[in-house]
């Protein structure tokens, strides 16, 4: 019983700084779920860029072969050494690269984008919502 009483006190005490942080922290999450992570872009924005976009599919080969954004290049971390030269054959420096994976919850697009930037390729963007977002918009 004592443990429970003390736990409730700690739970209540944490409400105070958490409440203040929720009001004043400049990095607090927005109440709306449309927040973009650094480097992420919405599909609408990417489509507005027109043909100067090179789509990069960061999912597995099987998923890519089943369906992908028209013109997309397959490039994932599993098979980076084989796929990266193929990507370089398709890429020209005036293109904007947009990486996508399955959905918002996947991290592959962020990892591939990071690896591309480390390899000296830029600018690299990530499609918010990934393949699911693309498919829903079609």
């Amino acid at each position, binding site marked *: 019983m*004592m*443990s*429970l*009483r*003390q*736990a*409730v*006190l*700690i*739970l209540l*005490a*944490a*409400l105070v*700084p*958490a*409440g203040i*942080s*929720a009001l004043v*922290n400049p*990095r*607090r*999450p*927005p*109440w*709306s*779920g449309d*927040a973009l*992570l650094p480097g992420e872009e919405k599909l609408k924005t990417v489509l507005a860029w027109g043909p100067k976009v090179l789509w990069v599919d960061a999912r597995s080969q099987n998923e890519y072969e089943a369906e992908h954004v028209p013109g997309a290049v397959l490039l994932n971390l599993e098979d980076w050494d084989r796929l990266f030269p193929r990507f370089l054959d398709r890429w020209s420096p005036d293109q904007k690269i947009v990486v996508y994976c399955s959905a*918002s*919850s*996947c*991290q*592959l697009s962020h990892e591939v984008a990071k690896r591309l930037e480390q390899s000296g390729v830029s600018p690299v963007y990530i499609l918010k919502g990934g393949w699911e977002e693309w498919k829903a918009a079609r």
Partner: protein
Amino acid sequence: MESGQVTTLTRDSARSSYARIGRFLARLVLGALFASAGALKIYDPGAFAIELERYQLVPWKIGVVTANYLPWLELLTGICLFLKWFERGALLLVTLLLGIFTLALASALVRGLNIDCGCFGHALVSTGTVIPILRNVVLLLLAGMLWTKYR
């Protein structure tokens, strides 16, 4: 007193000293880990909310509330445990939170989600879900060791 009794008493007292040292270390490890996990996430609750979204367990708005609240709760709980303030309450919370975190990680693993734990925000290297689950099991064992004090 016979020599056999003296030997038994000495052995019991050594065992109880080891148990005390073990509990002391367990308390420090758990307190420090919780406090640091909270402190590392407090700076950027926005990024933590996105980490939570990747688990696909709760709607975004609940994730926002959690991202604002949980790091402070972890920090406070860790400090309380470390400094032995409201120790039993802090231990109860540590045990419950570790249980919840482990279940969330296990559910992500079962669903095949390719995500990071997010336990320490973006401060540490990518760990996936298996290593954090194993780490949590060890931490739960440490918490169990602390509970033996209140038997």
